[in-house]
């Protein structure tokens, strides 16, 4: 009988990570298949038919980018990179090569679970009408944005930016992707700066208090990410 829950292919040569994840993921409803190198991953990906791939970039036998590239050829499953490498270029390269998201080690389990859920949700394209995280509540059908009890007035661009992030909630969107989705092919002089300024406005409206955790997180040199669940925040006991 087939095992239940989304099927996860875990590609990591580190025993402790393999061990920990294969212990904690099944109780969260996932079935975990483990491989320890790139070659094995490419061999097994078609027979396992995973719903999601967790990939460490520092594999002993193959370059991480190469593995992403070959995996994308063989399977439609989204890839979340989990890596100790935190260079911007590596992140952008991984995302450009076809990774869905990027998580830097060390990470917490809630963080990982949130990313996995977000990724699975976005590829399954089931979009709720209402998005909620922390005090933020966005009704996409009514174009209504609430922080706590009060309505927030956003400009059209700010709202569109928020909408795009909600659509990919939990996953990082690169500057390039966001610019394309917000302004299409219209050429602005410095679209990245325009994006930054729009983002800065949006943030201040959604979250005027720097003591509160951020809804939208900057991935330096890469782009932005809208957080999905409060459990996903660092300092997770903050709301406990």
């Amino acid at each position: 009988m087939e095992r239940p829950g989304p099927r996860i292919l875990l590609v990591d040569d580190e025993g402790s990570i393999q061990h920990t994840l294969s212990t904690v993921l099944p109780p969260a409803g996932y079935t975990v298949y483990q491989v320890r190198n790139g070659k094995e991953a490419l061999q097994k990906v078609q027979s396992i038919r995973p719903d999601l791939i967790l990939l460490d970039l520092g594999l002993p036998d193959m370059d991480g980018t190469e593995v992403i590239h070959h995996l994308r050829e063989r399977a439609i499953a989204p890839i979340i990179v989990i890596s100790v490498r935190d260079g911007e270029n590596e992140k952008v390269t991984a995302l450009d090569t076809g990774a869905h998201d990027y998580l830097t080690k060390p990470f917490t389990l809630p963080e990982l679970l949130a990313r996995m859920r977000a990724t699975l949700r976005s590829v399954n394209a089931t979009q709720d009408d209402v998005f909620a995280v922390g005090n933020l509540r966005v009704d996409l059908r009514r174009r209504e944005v609430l922080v706590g009890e009060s309505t927030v007035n956003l400009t059209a661009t700010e709202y569109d930016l928020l909408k795009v992030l909600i659509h990919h909630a939990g996953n990082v969107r690169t500057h390039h992707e966001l610019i394309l989705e917000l302004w299409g092919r219209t050429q602005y002089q410095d679209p990245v700066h325009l994006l930054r300024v729009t983002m800065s406005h949006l943030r201040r409206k959604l979250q005027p208090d720097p003591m509160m955790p951020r809804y939208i997180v900057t991935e330096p040199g890469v782009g932005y990410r809208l957080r999905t669940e409060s459990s996903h925040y660092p300092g997770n006991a903050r709301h406990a």
Partner: protein
Amino acid sequence: MDDSSAQKETEHSLRSLLRLSDKLNSASDLDSLLDSLVEQLLELTGAESGCAGLRTSQGMSCGHFFLGTKVVPLSYLCAPGVGWAGWLLQHGAHYLANDAVHDPVIVPAVRERLGVKSGLAVPIIDSEKDVIAFYEIYNKRAGDGFTRADLDHCLAAAQIASLAIHNRLLNRNLSALAAFSQSLTVTGDFDQILEVVGSHIEKNFQRRSVILLPVNGGLVPRSRSAEFILNESELAAATWSWEHGQAAGRSTEILSAAQAQYLPLQARGEVIGVLGVEVTRGAWLSNVQRQLFRAFVNQSALAIERGLLEQKMRRLRFLEESDKVQNAVLNAISHDVRAPLAAITVSLSALMTSNGALDQAAQHQLLETADLEARRLHRLVNNLLSMTRLETGASTVKTEPHDLLELVSAALEELGASGRHRQVSFDIPADLPLVPMDFGLITHVFINLFSNAFKFSPPDQPVEVRGHIIDDQLEVLVADRGVGVPPEDLGRVFDKFYRVAELGPTNGLGLGLAICKAFIEAHNGRINLENNPMGGTIVRFVIPFHQAATLRVGHSQP
């Protein structure tokens, strides 16, 4: 001419020669000496005009032209053999031409400018038989040109002038040498010493030079004038000089095909390097100049040796320092890594072995401790990594325009539980523009500053953050109301591994502020710490940026 008039004549000329001697000896410098020489000679001989000049390494510098008592602004250089001055230089003897109009040697420009019909040019020769200067006089007012008596007077005048000029040249040497020593003494940096040597040689002798120093058993050029060409034959001569402790190259008997002459730089009987000085055809150093040159070479050798010794000392001191640093790192790391590891291990092992003896609150407490300590460890490793990367040049600052508030917020998030219950107040204008910063580095700065503020101030006291743009700089203040820093420690809080003793041995590597400083300086900014008049400390940092290049956040956009 009868006897009495001849005697009068002789008396007159003797008096003139005496006056000449007085005038020359009382001249304040070489220029005024040459001026008086010409003036006195015109009076002595009754000539209309004249000039005087010094010998240089390239030939004769002709100047100090006088027409009567009027100065004629004229100066040029006669190479050996060119003009009367050049002729003197070549022959070491005087030149008398009573038909200057048809004279083939005179510089035509001078003939035209001063209307020269007759002339007498006399070399000034020093005791070493070197031509060191000269003078010329033109157009005797009475009679048919210059006479035998004029010539005798002129030769006598030349002898008097010789001693005076020689003395002035020696004086000039002394002051050049003094200036050279002075420049060397005030120079701290080794490369600067080499530069000073080169520039003074060029200034005083008009020669290009090179300094070669031994590195790993071979000679390496360390400082050279622009356009000094150092090919294999030059290197061969330099190496020979270094190995034998004797001069080699041009104008010597060894490897004389080289363009330059190479002189060993000797200090304490040891050859510490080689000085190469270009020798151009026809160029010349007088004995006086050679003396100066030798003094320069000795002085250079001493200065270079001193520089080398200082370098060695610095290296030793650095090794000692880095030894100290290494020990400090080991101590600090063994403490700061072990402490959180111990907490994590104890917490987790307690949970694993409790067998239900712990209630839920206790379990949660242990888990929270483990989580907190793991984060602290992570931060520590990140701090050390970022610092090492910056210091070794493995990473550079990657600036993007960022919202100051977001960095502050990210830092507070990162601190998690330790900042959760603290009161932090913000004074950051809503229209503060985006400032180009490295997100990771400046967030680290805030993490470290907040972490200190939380650690060293009572939990019920507020921590204050202010951010403003002043004069194209972002100025940020983080103030706490804690224990403050003893005044004697204020100067050292940014040193690596420095911990304020009064605050106890625990808590931290003593790296936090050093890291802040490194990160802020990597942004070309500055950071300082002062005691808060209200109690506690204020850390203030500034990061420069050009506002014109940055869109303001407060404006509406499309």
